[in-house]
């Protein structure tokens, strides 16, 4: 019996960070969908129902805070775990809005530990 790999939606506007983080996650056994901004991230969230959302804060068109607010208003999927990442701690974000926060730049092992923890806690 095959186990479906956890599906992560990665929302990040910087192409280098988006690509390399996605590759590392895929090599760790996750299925990854990529979005270059919050607006596209929300579209993929609705369309693909990921197990975990990992989002940057500062992005064009729709920032990470707006994306999280939209997800938290998404009815039965509102409790999807969210890992917020940013270079600066956004003061507007309530600690309860995102399930975890990781400051950039981060080491991948630290990042993956947060991913594993959030997926287990679902």
């Amino acid at each position: 019996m095959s186990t479906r790999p956890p599906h992560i939606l990665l929302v990040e506007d910087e192409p280098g960070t988006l690509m390399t983080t996605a590759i590392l996650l895929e090599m760790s056994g996750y299925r990854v969908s990529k979005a270059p901004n919050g607006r596209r991230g929300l579209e993929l969230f609705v369309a693909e129902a990921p197990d975990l959302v990992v989002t940057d804060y500062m992005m064009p068109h729709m920032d990470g805070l707006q994306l999280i607010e939209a997800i938290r208003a998404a009815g039965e999927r509102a409790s999807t775990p969210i890992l917020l990442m940013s270079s600066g701690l956004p003061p507007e974000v309530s600690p309860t809005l995102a399930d975890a926060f990781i400051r950039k730049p981060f080491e991948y092992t630290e990042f993956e530990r947060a991913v594993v923890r959030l997926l287990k806690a679902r």
Partner: protein
Amino acid sequence: MSDRDEKDKTPPRRITTGVPGLDTVLSGGLLPGAVYIVQGSPGAGKTILANQICFHRVTQGEKALYVTLLAESHARLIQNLERMSFYDERRLPSSIFYVSGYDDLESGGLEGILRLLNHESQRRGTSLIVVDGLFVLEESVQSEREFRKFVNYLSTLASLLTATILLLTNSRRTQASPEYTMVDGWIEVATATHGHLGSRYVQVHKFRGSDFVAGLHTTVISDDGMRVLPRLEATTGLEGQGAAEVARVPSGVPALDGLIGGGVPQGSTTLVLGPTGVGKTTLGLHFIAQCSEQAPGLIFGFYENASRLALKARMLGIDLEGLVRRGAVEVVWQPASEPSLDGLGYRLIEAVRRRGAKRVLVDGLRGFERAQFYDERSSPFLAALTHVLRAEGVTSLYTSEVPQIIGERSEISFGPISAVAENILLMRYVELDSALHRLLSVLKVRDSDFDSAVRRFVIDARGIRIGDVFRDTEGLLTGHAHRPPADA
């Protein structure tokens, strides 16, 4: 005069940059609604400059948008900024917002970038936009015409949004390239090497709607960010130069004051020339020993640090340490590694202003002579420096070493400082009767009579003591004195 005329003459509002010295070069700062190229090779300081301006504008209650295009990651960029004193984590992301424009460029081309800038700037209320990576946009277009249209639209966008736009780019194309011809200003930051020494500079090539200080200006990057040192002579007015000084201040050697009309003119510059060890610094220490808490002084030295100077002073009966302790004197020692003429000049001026110094001893003019570009800039630079010091009410004394211990006076090069020094004293050795003697002669005291006789002096535990005129001796200033033959 009509209202219209009055309005036309109102100087435009300026966007101060917060980069010390840059606003002086830009005659007050950037202009709102204008587009500027900040160009320079990697490592020249474009990113620091742009971020420093962003953080400064935020302190003025404004917001900034920083858009990158295949540049270093925001995390790395911010990590590098964290050590800068202007960096304030609390400003992120509420007041400064970093986004990547790469996806918009890939999906929407240059129009996508324009839409992104418009959308993000309007929704965040930003008045400053930085686009980091203009060369990426250049590479993405099919034709010069397309890029020209983009720069034109960008100018219109800046005007409509009343936002100042900084375009950061590595590439330096020809001046006829559309980005340079169509933008409002072009600021180059660069690094250069001279022999083994490196330096940084900024140069404004173009600045529409305003005058600017042309030419190269040294820049310094430290944990305080970038600082521009506008060429001293280019930013210092020389009006009032040569105004008559009447008040005299004591030189610290009473017998010398007797030779020059009661002391050195207040606010004047005195040059003391002489070979090594003859007593130039000793005279300078006498001069600086006249300082008090009410009229403090400064020793700006290159060779002898504070402890060595204190020891030397003690041997002359001068309590330099006590003067320093009481705040009457500050010793500012310059490392020999400082390559920047303006760096030295501004350090001296700032120390004078910080202390409210009324006397300055520059011990070793050669420290300035070693700086880059001294040969081509020395005269105007020293004129500007002495002018600034005079305007600060400072009476200055410079020591300058001449190479010859003994030799023809005509071999002595006084250097460009002599043109701006009101007073010139020459200290020399002379050989007479199989012994070396020190002698002092006054060569110049501007607008004043002086005693030009050549006098012997000694240095002992009381410092410099000036003696009698050499009599019955010829050839003193050649260094090889001799007694004239007795009349037959």
